[in-house]
């Protein structure tokens, strides 16, 4: 009880609350704007966390992540264009409800179910990650190496349309992660004579180039002066108790599915919202209402994508394995502050971890309150043409990159990365695989080398404990499931196009 009081005192500081407020507003605006999205918002705010205490910076990114999940539904409902991939399923019922009934009512269903899903995800984070981290204390270097491989397998094989290109993306991310001075021997690796690369590829330049600058080129090619017409008739948000009860079942199912799939690396909110929508529509008492403006059809995907945000933090905090691009960027904030997520962080940085636990719930409350107050304002942001957005975001990108280290080299690097990834994205390479592999590279390599040093070069060490054997079996199962899934997809839907979850 004493610990709880101290944790809450650490959490409720002015800096933390202002950071949550800023993150929520930025997340909602970027989530609402089609083409920008949560990942870009988190990437752009990453340099700001340099100047902040670790908890405040991480809470700001978490608030952005949470609010972006709801923000995506604003454009999905008002424009019929999802602001984020996680809001794609919301369009099916959200837009018809806005057109036929009331846009404010549709937004209210989205906000309430997102908030309930967010709280549920936060509770899962609190109650699952502690026992998982305790269990993970039994792991040694071989197990950590295998865990990293599982994370990569899940992301590389489950995301993206083209599995080979996803695997190439994973390798590219790992290669980028090995650039710089080798921490075990002090040897320079692939720095091409550039002293700026001795500390590795600057995370901020890498992220902003890959996600933001490349996305700006995509926005330009989609049209610069397209002006969306939003139905902004009645945007006042609010639901009666009876209406909230009406979405209770779908919100519960959505939250359970979202938190469950969020825990599994590589699946995330993009897939979970469709899964929740399918389950709720098939088990509903009124299936005929789906697709025509059903409240349940809004609540299921929205609760699911916010619950998946909390779920995705479980393997990240307990094992150090990020499951999505946004979480990988948040891991970047940890690394920049010299903190390595994983089971040891629960003892080494106890205040930070519990601050994140309770802070995650606070970010959800902030999302609800700001959503109630400011949704009509965010809806007006939707009419800003891409010409203004591209110019402004480009300048913010360049400022953010320079502010991170004060090096012009990073600006040139980010621009080059932006151009390269614009082409790679068009060729359907998976950017989320690249970034997750990049942040996992040191964990995988160091534990691989430590394992082989311990065993004098014998690979038997990866089969030396029950845990490592179980993890090897999981790797085999992940590969088998991916091959089976791919064969099944080709047999049933030869033209189906899975998306690069969490990125576009």
């Amino acid at each position: 009880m004493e610990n709880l009081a101290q944790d809450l005192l650490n959490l409720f500081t002015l800096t933390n609350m202002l950071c949550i407020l800023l993150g929520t507003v930025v997340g909602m605006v970027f989530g609402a704007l089609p083409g920008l999205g949560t990942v870009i918002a988190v990437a752009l705010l990453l340099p700001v966390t340099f100047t902040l205490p670790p908890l405040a910076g991480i809470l700001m990114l978490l608030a952005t992540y949470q609010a972006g999940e709801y923000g995506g539904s604003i454009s999905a409902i008002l424009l019929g264009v999802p602001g984020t991939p996680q809001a794609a399923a919301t369009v099916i019922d959200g837009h018809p409800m806005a057109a036929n009934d009331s846009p404010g009512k549709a937004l209210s269903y989205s906000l309430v179910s997102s908030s309930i899903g967010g709280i549920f995800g936060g509770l899962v984070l609190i109650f699952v990650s502690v026992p998982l981290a305790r269990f993970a204390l039994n792991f040694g270097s071989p197990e950590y190496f295998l865990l990293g491989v599982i994370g990569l397998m899940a992301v590389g094989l489950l995301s993206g349309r083209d599995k080979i290109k996803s695997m190439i993306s994973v390798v590219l991310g790992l290669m980028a992660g090995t650039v710089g001075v080798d921490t075990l021997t002090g040897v320079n690796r692939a720095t091409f004579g550039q002293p700026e690369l001795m500390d590795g590829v600057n995370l901020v330049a890498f992220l902003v180039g890959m996600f933001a600058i490349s996305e700006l080129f995509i926005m330009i090619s989609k049209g610069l002066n397209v002006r969306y017409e939003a139905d902004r008739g009645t945007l006042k948000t609010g639901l009666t108790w009876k209406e909230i009860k009406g979405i209770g079942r779908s919100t519960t199912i959505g939250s359970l599915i979202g938190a469950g799939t969020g825990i599994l690396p590589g699946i995330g909110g993009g897939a979970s919202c469709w899964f929740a929508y399918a389950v709720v529509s098939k088990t509903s008492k009124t299936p005929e209402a789906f697709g025509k403006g059903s409240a349940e059809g809004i609540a299921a995907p929205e609760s699911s994508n916010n619950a998946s945000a909390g779920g995705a933090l479980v393997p990240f905090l307990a094992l150090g394995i990020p499951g999505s691009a946004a979480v990988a960027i948040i891991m970047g904030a940890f690394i920049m502050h010299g903190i390595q997520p994983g089971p040891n962080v629960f003892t080494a940085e106890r205040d930070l971890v519990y601050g994140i636990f309770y802070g995650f719930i606070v970010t959800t409350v902030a999302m609800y309150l700001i959503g109630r107050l400011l949704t009509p304002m965010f809806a007006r942001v939707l009419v800003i043409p891409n010409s203004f957005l591209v110019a402004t975001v480009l300048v913010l990108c360049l400022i953010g990159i320079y502010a991170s280290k004060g090096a012009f080299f990073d600006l040139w690097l980010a621009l080059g990365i932006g151009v390269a990834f614009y082409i790679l994205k068009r060729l359907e390479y998976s950017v989320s695989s690249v970034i997750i592999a990049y942040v996992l590279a040191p964990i995988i390599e160091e534990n691989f080398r430590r394992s082989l040093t311990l065993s004098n070069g014998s690979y038997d060490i990866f089969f030396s404990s029950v845990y490592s054997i179980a993890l090897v079996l999981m790797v085999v199962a992940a590969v088998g499931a991916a091959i089976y899934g791919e064969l099944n997809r080709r047999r049933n839907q030869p033209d189906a196009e899975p998306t690069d979850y969490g990125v576009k």
Partner: protein
Amino acid sequence: MTWKHLNSLMSVLLIMGGIGYTLNLNHSASQAIFFSGSGVGPTYFPNALTGILVLLCIVTLIRNFRDKSPENTAMVTTENFGYILATLALAIAFIASWQVFGYFYLNVFVLLTVLLTIYRIEFGIRNSSLVAVVTSVFLTGFLFALFGKILEISF
């Protein structure tokens, strides 16, 4: 250029990049003792990655060569390609000017003004340049107030 050509070109570039990476890696690590007792030194993992990259790119090349679908043989089209090139050129000019001459806020103002004028040129040069100047003054002022005054970050 067709998608097939672009795909092949990208695979070849990735192979070349991978080889360049591994050559540079082995050269820079050559002065060090890079094989520990276990045989796993600092070049072991990156070299293995290069091998996997080259292998996967060759698979992509073969698969792409055999793919004769209409999507793969279609021409690559990029809407607003001129605007993308203009944006890239202006970003390069902005960074170079900032690096050589300094004057960050002046450079920001010029970049925003030129970008917005070009982006909105369909509304007429007078209209677009007027809107561009007004927007740039406002945005540059906002950035100066935020970074220069409140956060006290100097560029």
